[in-house]
């Protein structure tokens, strides 16, 4: 018990210290990269939350875009402060997601996958067609967030360093909430819907409403992730949220693993570091991504998250051999 708690404290403080020290050590380029990494973490973990019910949604990236657009429009044209646009952009994604669900709930498995692509793409194309979203060029000059404290001055998050810490706090908050959901009974019901839907129906659980719940909670966080990106880049356009990003998201989650909460986190971390190491490869990078996906599917069907589980018996064997020799 005591040892477990110690482990937990170390397991939480070590990354905390690293994440707080990081922006002071890294160059500007890498701090920018880390902010994007945070947004991708929220995106991948919320995507995985929806997959627990068996629904793989290719509309997830367009719905992240919905959050980005909503926050950009609200702050640029209405002059709303960041702390208002953040939740409202999440809600905007949720609302659009609810409309998408009307046809999508009638679909399952592969049909859902393809259907979600079609409807997500429809959303994305509407940004090109509808004037207020700025067409192909998107929206530029999205203001930097600032938070006014009544009676005191306004804190501006214009600099990369303040924005880093704002993104860090939001990301940690999002991940903690999603972790709590993952540990609650609700996730057991989500998983049960995936594996034995008829049993779930037979004990009085409304399968449809739980699918809506998973999709909507995941979509809210996708929207939040979009807000982080929009105010970081100061510019968004429809091409940021196209299928390419959706496929990368799939690769992160599939290679990282989606049976546990840690899987997508491992996946995003792995590919962010890998992407940096392989930057000299340039246009060849998608090829390497594809190769890793295939290798992952062949040798680690349960994802990178299963590596410790797979290695520990091997290590034990080696240790036994070591002592007997």
């Amino acid at each position, binding site marked *: 018990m005591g040892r477990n708690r110690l482990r937990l404290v170390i397991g939480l403080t070590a990354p905390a210290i690293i994440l707080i020290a990081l922006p002071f050590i890294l160059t500007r380029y890498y701090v920018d990269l880390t902010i994007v990494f945070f947004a991708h973490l929220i995106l991948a973990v919320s995507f995985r939350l929806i997959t627990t019910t068996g629904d793989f949604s290719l509309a997830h990236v367009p719905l992240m875009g919905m959050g980005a657009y909503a926050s950009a429009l609200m702050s640029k044209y209405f002059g709303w402060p960041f702390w208002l646009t953040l939740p409202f952009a999440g809600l905007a994604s949720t609302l659009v997601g609810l409309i998408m669900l009307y046809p999508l709930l009638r679909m399952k498995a592969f049909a859902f996958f393809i259907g979600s692509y079609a409807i997500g793409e429809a959303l994305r194309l509407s940004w090109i067609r509808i004037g207020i979203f700025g067409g192909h060029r998107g929206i530029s000059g999205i203001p930097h967030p600032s938070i006014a404290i009544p009676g005191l001055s306004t804190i501006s998050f214009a600099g990369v360093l303040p924005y880093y810490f704002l993104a860090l706090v939001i990301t940690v908050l999002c991940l903690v909430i999603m972790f709590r959901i993952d540990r609650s009974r609700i996730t057991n019901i989500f998983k049960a819907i995936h594996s034995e839907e008829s049993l779930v129906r037979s*004990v*009085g659980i409304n399968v449809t409403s739980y699918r809506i719940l998973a999709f909507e909670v995941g979509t809210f966080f996708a929207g939040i992730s979009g807000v982080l990106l929009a105010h970081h880049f100061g510019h968004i356009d429809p091409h940021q949220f196209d299928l390419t990003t959706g496929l990368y998201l799939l690769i992160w989650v599939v290679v990282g693993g989606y049976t546990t909460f840690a899987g997508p986190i491992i996946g995003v971390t792995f590919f962010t570091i890998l992407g940096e190491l392989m930057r000299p490869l340039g246009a060849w990078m998608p090829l390497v991504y594809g190769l890793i996906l295939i290798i992952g599917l062949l040798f680690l069907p349960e994802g990178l998250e299963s590596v410790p589980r797979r290695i520990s018996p091997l290590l034990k064997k080696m240790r036994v051999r070591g002592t007997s020799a």
Partner: protein
Amino acid sequence: MNKLEIRGLRKQFGGLVAVNDIDLELEEGEIRGLIGPNGSGKTTLFNLISGFLRPTKGKVIWRGKDITGNPAHSIVKEGIVRTFQLTTLLKDMTALQNVVIGCHLHIEMGLFEQVFGTARRREKEKAVIERAVGLLKTMGIEDVKDEPAGALPHGYQRLLNIAIALASEPKLLLLDEPTTGMNPVETQELMDRIKMLRDESGITIILVEHDMKAVMGTCEKITVLDFGKKIAEGSPEEVSKNEKVIEAYLGR
């Protein structure tokens, strides 16, 4: 008073009439046997009563209320719970977790409380687990509560399925071949348990079963289906002497 009343119930799959204008009436606290050769429409009838399928025609009336075509989850709320012919379990979860999922309707916990609540949640959680353990005890399988359901022997899995169904506190329990894969001793034990359940909590049970000895020994009244039609109904003695029944089972 009749608790369950089925009037002219029909289910058609394209040209195939799986359930053909069936009438059925059940008394409160009755254990009714439902027998018939394979493909005679027993499981389809269960699917229609429990809302897993919508009937083409006809009515299902439960305690004076028309529940025809209602969605499955709302029919469970009315107190009608079914089990499945094939063992249907969450194989990766423990036996206890399976029953806890079954307690769903009786856990009063909002989303917010489940995600953020602490003290009160833990208390409720404890109560649910106690209830689930109690149900495992009722079925005599509390010793395997922490085993993954998928690793249990077949007979235990069948009993676990009934424990899950009981977790929704049914007033009418539809058991679809609960003894499949059980040896005669286990079958007898299960039949005794079913009778005990009825005697103690007064629930009404419909039992689909292939083991004739078990059905005859447990049910007061038996309904026989063949090709989707009701061909006989009555006490075990009456039914076993019925010409049509003998013909359906033995062929001409």
